[in-house]
């Protein structure tokens, strides 16, 4: 069920909040099992056939963690991590690797159209984070309910944020509604939910109307004029930000209403003045995961410049592949790896850059590489670049209003998270949020109700 759907907002959420409040108040021992049951119900609403997969994934990983804790056999953890990656590869990359294998003469691998279980990219990484830290002696053992909830907690199971066990496990043992700031947390969570919904339906979905027709035209082989190409490229740049950061605001807000603080995922990324700065502000929990569990494992920055650059490029390339089974994702990731490497060399050489130029180069680099990400094929991306650089169709047709609003909010305005955490509990602010929520609900009622972009990853 989508966060931006009536079934979620008018049925699941109120019932879940009521049941959760009742058990927290009268049967605190039941709180975690109830949260887990609600999470499975939420996950199963998409497609109940994926629930056994999620349950199996949790059971197997938890049993391995148990066995490791008791036996201390180191080999178990690398085996489990590999098994998780193999499961992810099977569901997400089977056809991609099969097509690669088919390039070898004599090999004719099978082709399976397997439905991608929602959230598998995210919960696989959760398993890896915990198991790696367990092996390193940093993470303790958890019982099955707590571990299941770490993996399957409904606000974050589908598209993150990627939460470290250390950020969430201790919160499961709290009595969230007994805290002195319980009402404040609930209210701020509700405001975050409303703000996220507003970002999604008023900005992300409007920008989709700007973006989709242009990409459809490019995919149909039509030549784009410079205005159209700009509209498509900038439109998707802002769309993906409002879509994903809106989703994250909703996830964080919902978790807060259930008494759990999840980590931030975006910090005004389009204000970044370098590529390194950008990745500290964009999908922050993924960047953190890639840094701590991949980049450092591949050598990091302490084994010389060559290894550092290679690790950086490899990490970002794999990060690109994580987004989808296709060469465009790989190239997108690799380009960011190369971009980050160039930035490392620039810094090591002691060069500096005015911040306005750094901002411009960073933003332009992201927009141009995101075109490859969105295009789905290099032909379409090439078609786009021709338009962008004046080698496409003649003329200049640009719908700019939503782009201007998107640019202003994402670049100048504070993030929803920042604003909402500063707001005082004034009645007129509540009244403004009432109006915003009502208009959002009417917008959600329209026939065109878009899914979130990051569900596909």
């Amino acid at each position, binding site marked *: 069920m989508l966060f931006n759907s009536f079934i979620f907002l008018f049925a699941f959420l109120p019932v879940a909040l009521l049941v959760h409040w009742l058990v927290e108040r009268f049967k605190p021992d039941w709180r975690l099992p109830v949260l887990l049951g609600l999470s499975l119900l939420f996950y199963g609403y998409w497609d109940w056939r994926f629930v056994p997969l999620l349950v199996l994934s949790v059971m197997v990983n938890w049993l391995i963690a148990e066995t490791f804790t008791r036996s201390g056999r180191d080999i178990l953890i690398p085996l489990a991590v590999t098994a998780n990656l193999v499961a992810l590869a099977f569901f997400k990359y089977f056809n991609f690797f099969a097509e690669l294998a088919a390039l070898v003469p004599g090999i004719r691998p099978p082709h399976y159209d397997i439905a991608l279980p929602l959230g598998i990219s995210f919960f696989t990484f959760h398993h890896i984070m915990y198991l790696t830290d367990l092996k390193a002696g940093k993470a303790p053992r958890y019982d099955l309910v707590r571990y299941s909830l770490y993996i399957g907690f409904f606000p974050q199971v589908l598209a993150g944020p990627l939460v470290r066990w250390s950020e969430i496990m201790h919160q499961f043992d709290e009595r969230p509604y007994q805290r002195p700031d319980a009402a404040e947390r609930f209210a701020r969570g509700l405001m975050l939910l409303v703000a996220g919904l507003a970002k999604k339906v008023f900005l992300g979905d409007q920008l989709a109307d700007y973006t989709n027709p242009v990409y459809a035209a490019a995919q149909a082989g039509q030549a784009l004029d410079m205005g159209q190409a700009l509209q498509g490229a900038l439109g998707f740049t802002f769309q993906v930000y409002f879509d994903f950061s809106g989703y994250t605001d909703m996830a964080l807000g919902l978790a807060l209403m259930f008494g759990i603080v999840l980590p931030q995922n975006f910090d005004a990324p389009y204000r970044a003045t370098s590529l390194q700065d950008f990745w500290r502000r964009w999908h922050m929990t993924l960047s953190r995961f890639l840094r701590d569990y991949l980049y450092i494992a591949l050598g990091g920055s302490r084994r010389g410049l060559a290894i550092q650059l290679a690790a950086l490029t490899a990490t970002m390339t794999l990060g690109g592949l994580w987004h989808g089974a296709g060469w465009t994702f790989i190239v997108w990731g690799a380009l960011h790896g190369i971009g980050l490497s160039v930035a490392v060399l620039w810094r090591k050489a002691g060069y500096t850059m005015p911040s306005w130029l750094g901002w411009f180069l960073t933003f332009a680099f992201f927009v141009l590489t995101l075109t490859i990400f969105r295009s789905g094929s290099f032909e379409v991306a090439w078609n786009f670049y021709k338009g962008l650089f004046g080698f496409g169709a003649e003329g200049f047709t640009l719908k700019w209003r939503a782009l201007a609003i998107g640019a202003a909010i994402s670049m100048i305005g504070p993030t929803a998270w920042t604003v909402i955490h500063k707001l005082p509990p004034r009645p007129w602010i509540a009244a403004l949020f*009432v109006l915003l929520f009502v208009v959002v609900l009417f917008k959600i009622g*329209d026939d065109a109700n878009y899914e979130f972009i990051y569900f596909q990853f």
Partner: protein
Amino acid sequence: MNSSISSSEAAAQHDGARWRRFAVTLVVGTLAVLTGIVTLAYAVDPYDSGRSALFERPGVRPQGPRTANASRGRDPAFDAVVVGNSRIQLLAPERLNQATGLSFVQLAVPGSGPKEHMTLIDWYLRHRKAPPRALVVSVDDLWCTSDPNLANDKPFPFWLYSADPLDYARGLVRFDVLEELPLRLAYLFGKDPERARPDGYWDYEPEYAALGYMTNPEIRKRLAQKPYAAAERLERDPLEGRRRFPAAGRFREIAAALPAETALVLVMPPAYTNLQPPPGTEKAFQDQACKAAIVAAARQVHPRTAVVDWRVDRPENRNPDLFFDQMHYRLPIARLIERDVSAALRRLL
């Protein structure tokens, strides 16, 4: 120290109370405002669906047929109806009226399919006090789908035509309704507001012509495309007797519920010759089976049924000057279909 703890506790309690009030205001306020607007919308009845008796002015302001047909379809002035999509839209109620003596309303909705058509037939029938005299239904190839849901990728406000008041109330929660409410109030209280044409006729020739459908060589070239040129020719239908057309089953229920005296005319609208599958192709077998299934479904339960089949090879369908594109014919053909429909009605009535 104790006093400082107690004062910070008091502050926390005070803050907690303020935040509780804030959260309650937000939740209760949202529900109250939402309920208020839906109640207002229900009372104002933005599309004149007849669910509220507060205002007497009939009709709606000019708008698309998806919503305007709620008002047209319940208008007691019409004892006969035409239902379909753009491929029946050019039939003029006035001409049909002159030829038959009936009073027709056009409920055609461009881009709609059998599910939408049957929804509108149901709506029209539900709002008759006297048995309707005639029902003219366009049965194009969209009726031949094997999808039991009769799905259509274009939106249609099924909620507006629902028999369930809750379904309708839920449907009112949409941005379109928020935008429509002030326009509706202006229509209701305006001195001489412009009204959507009550009989639903729309001659779209000028729009098509303005888009270059008769002059632009690139568009005209599309008429020459032959989608079935490479289709395999078969001696017999490989799925003979096994084809299923869910629309036929659904339509049988509607035909069975028609009063015996109501004339039912099924019109298979024309297609330009290149769009008609040549005999012996699988598509042609499917088309034949589909037509037969729908006609049989209707005739078995409603004997007063006639068929006007223009999805056949005939001289008009080979004349490119009579078509905008491969599925949209021009006014001269519309006049001929009106003539055939009128003749069929005269036989039935």
